[in-house]
């Protein structure tokens, strides 16, 4: 009796061990395979990054040597696309933001700067001496980064470090070899902070655009108490039937330094209302009602737009015109642009979100307006409307023309004729410069059942 029992239990035990090792081998294989796949993707991005930097070196060198605007345009646009590709490669590597933020910025600006120069040369303008020197500096910088990355490939081979071993940040300490490699990338990134020149040019990543300061914050500084009063009075413009109690006031020291105020309505409403009041001038930067409107649509879109218009009038910020609206969730977002002498001021944009359940204002944002609003003296257009119409594509079936001030990437503002027209059933807004007649911008307007959106 005894022997077979032991035998059976041994046999079963053996089976269990065999089963367990089978499954753990399966797990191991799976983990091994996915680790290798991940490593392959990292290596692919890394070596593409090096290759793209090599190409950038050649292209920047050719720009320095070239004396043809035609060539320059093509070369510089290629620089832009290569720099963007390199940026994508870099941000796919597991190096951590701390070790890549500056390099990322270098590549963004290199591409953006080249693109802005390409626009100039395509327009028949020369690359200035100053711009040539900037390209020379960037070229030299690029060569240094490239050789540093080459050195790092050597180090990784020598120490037998894989990218997969660089990514255990949150848990334990990294092995010494991995840390050495990571530090190499970190040093490369840190050096850029001191070396790269300040770049001011005609593009969205230009230093003067990234570091812009708000123009619309007029008036004296307000203290916490005054800000709380402003917040409560603002809410009275939305709902006169109740007063509000401040439940929390915090500070936010961003681009628009503000008090962040949370209110509760005294009529028993449970949901928080959040407002941002600028410390300079006490302007309402934003308002959000924390309560999500219930999914019952009781208010028509037309009434929601008219409610938004009435609300904007009450703010007494000046003349505004609704430029578009879009239903999302159970709210209608209405965009407004400022207006001056019949000219639409697109930089001065405010947004109002109306609850389609109650018709009340659920959200308000004036940050764009506060960033760009300034007293403007608008020059009279040189072109007549008829001349602007003639300047548009002859295939465009024109529906409406009006004067509009538009912001460019470099924060410059241009007075244009906004020509709304149709091609193949799609609506486009074409902007023709009212002084020079050049086409500044084209927007595609997408009409959906919920409203319109511009791309």
């Amino acid at each position, binding site marked *: 009796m005894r022997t077979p029992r032991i035998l059976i239990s041994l046999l079963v035990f053996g089976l269990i061990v065999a089963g367990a090792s089978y499954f753990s081998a399966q797990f191991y294989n799976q983990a091994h395979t996915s680790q290798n796949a991940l490593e392959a993707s990292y290596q692919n991005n890394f070596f593409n990054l090096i290759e793209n930097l090599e190409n950038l070196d050649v292209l920047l060198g050719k720009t320095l040597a070239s004396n043809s605007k035609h060539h320059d345009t093509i070369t510089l646009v290629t620089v832009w696309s290569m720099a963007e590709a390199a940026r994508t490669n870099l941000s*796919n590597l597991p190096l951590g933001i701390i070790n890549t933020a500056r390099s990322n910025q270098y590549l963004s600006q290199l591409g953006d700067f080249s693109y802005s120069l390409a626009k100039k040369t395509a327009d028949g303008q020369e690359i200035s001496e100053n711009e040539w020197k900037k390209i020379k500096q960037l070229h030299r910088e690029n060569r240094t980064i490239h050789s540093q990355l080459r050195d790092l490939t050597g180090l990784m081979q020598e120490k037998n470090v894989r990218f997969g071993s660089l990514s255990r940040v949150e848990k334990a300490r990294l092995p010494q070899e991995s840390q050495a490699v990571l530090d190499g990338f970190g040093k490369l990134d840190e050096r850029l902070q001191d070396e790269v020149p300040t770049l001011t040019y005609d593009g969205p990543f230009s230093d003067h655009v990234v570091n812009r300061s708000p123009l619309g914050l007029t008036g004296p500084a307000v203290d916490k108490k005054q800000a709380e009063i402003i917040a409560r009075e603002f809410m009275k413009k939305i709902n006169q039937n109740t007063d509000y109690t401040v439940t929390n006031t*915090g500070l936010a020291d*961003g681009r628009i330094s503000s008090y962040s105020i949370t209110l509760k309505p005294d009529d028993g409403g449970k949901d928080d209302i959040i407002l941002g009041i600028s410390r300079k001038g006490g302007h309402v930067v934003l308002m959000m009602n924390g309560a999500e409107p219930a999914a019952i649509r009781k208010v028509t879109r037309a009434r929601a737009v008219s409610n938004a218009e009435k609300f904007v009038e009450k703010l007494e910020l000046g003349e505004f015109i609704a430029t578009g609206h879009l239903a999302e969730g159970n709210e209608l977002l209405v965009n407004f642009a400022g207006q001056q002498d019949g000219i639409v001021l697109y930089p001065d944009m405010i947004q109002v979100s109306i609850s389609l359940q109650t018709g009340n204002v659920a959200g308000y944002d004036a940050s764009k307006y506060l960033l760009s609003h300034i007293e403007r003296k608008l020059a009279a257009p040189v072109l007549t409307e008829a001349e602007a119409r003639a300047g548009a594509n002859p295939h465009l079936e024109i529906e409406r023309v009006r004067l509009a001030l538009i912001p460019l990437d470099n924060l410059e503002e241009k007075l244009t004729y906004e020509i709304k027209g149709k091609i193949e059933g799609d609506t486009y807004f074409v902007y023709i410069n009212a002084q020079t007649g050049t086409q500044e911008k084209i927007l595609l307007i997408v009409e959906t059942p919920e409203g319109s959106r511009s791309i």
Partner: protein
Amino acid sequence: MKQGDYSLKVLAALLLICILGFGLFFIQIKEEIPVIPVQGKIGEPRSDDVWMISRMIAAESRGEPFDGQVAVASVIVNRVRSPKFPGTVNGVIYQPLAFTPIVDGQFWSVNPTDNHLRAARYALNGWDPSYGSTFYWNPATATSKWIWSRTIITRIGKHVFGV
């Protein structure tokens, strides 16, 4: 017979461990099925972005006040606009090591609510209660000392926001 009882007990215990092991194995597999975001039509380029950001809110900012949720979404939007980070919502969210829910896989198992979607839309439409922040962290769980070298802009709920 005493010995037999003993080996039977061992057997039963081992079998139990085995069953538990198998159970765990399958549960793990079940959780790993990723949900693929619904693709938008042309002209609704943001529908994917709204969906992606609302997942991050659901994973990182559950139980936070509405402005805290919009602020977390704003950090993603601000990164997209910054030259220091990738230039798309996808690029920012999937940047290696950038967000914990991607590292631990929570991102694919959360169910964003209507309110999370609403917070994501507010951030994409320009509301920014983080006032330009490109980082957020939870002081109670943040393990990296480096994060405290960031300039703090504001605090909302349990998160600190900064650049």
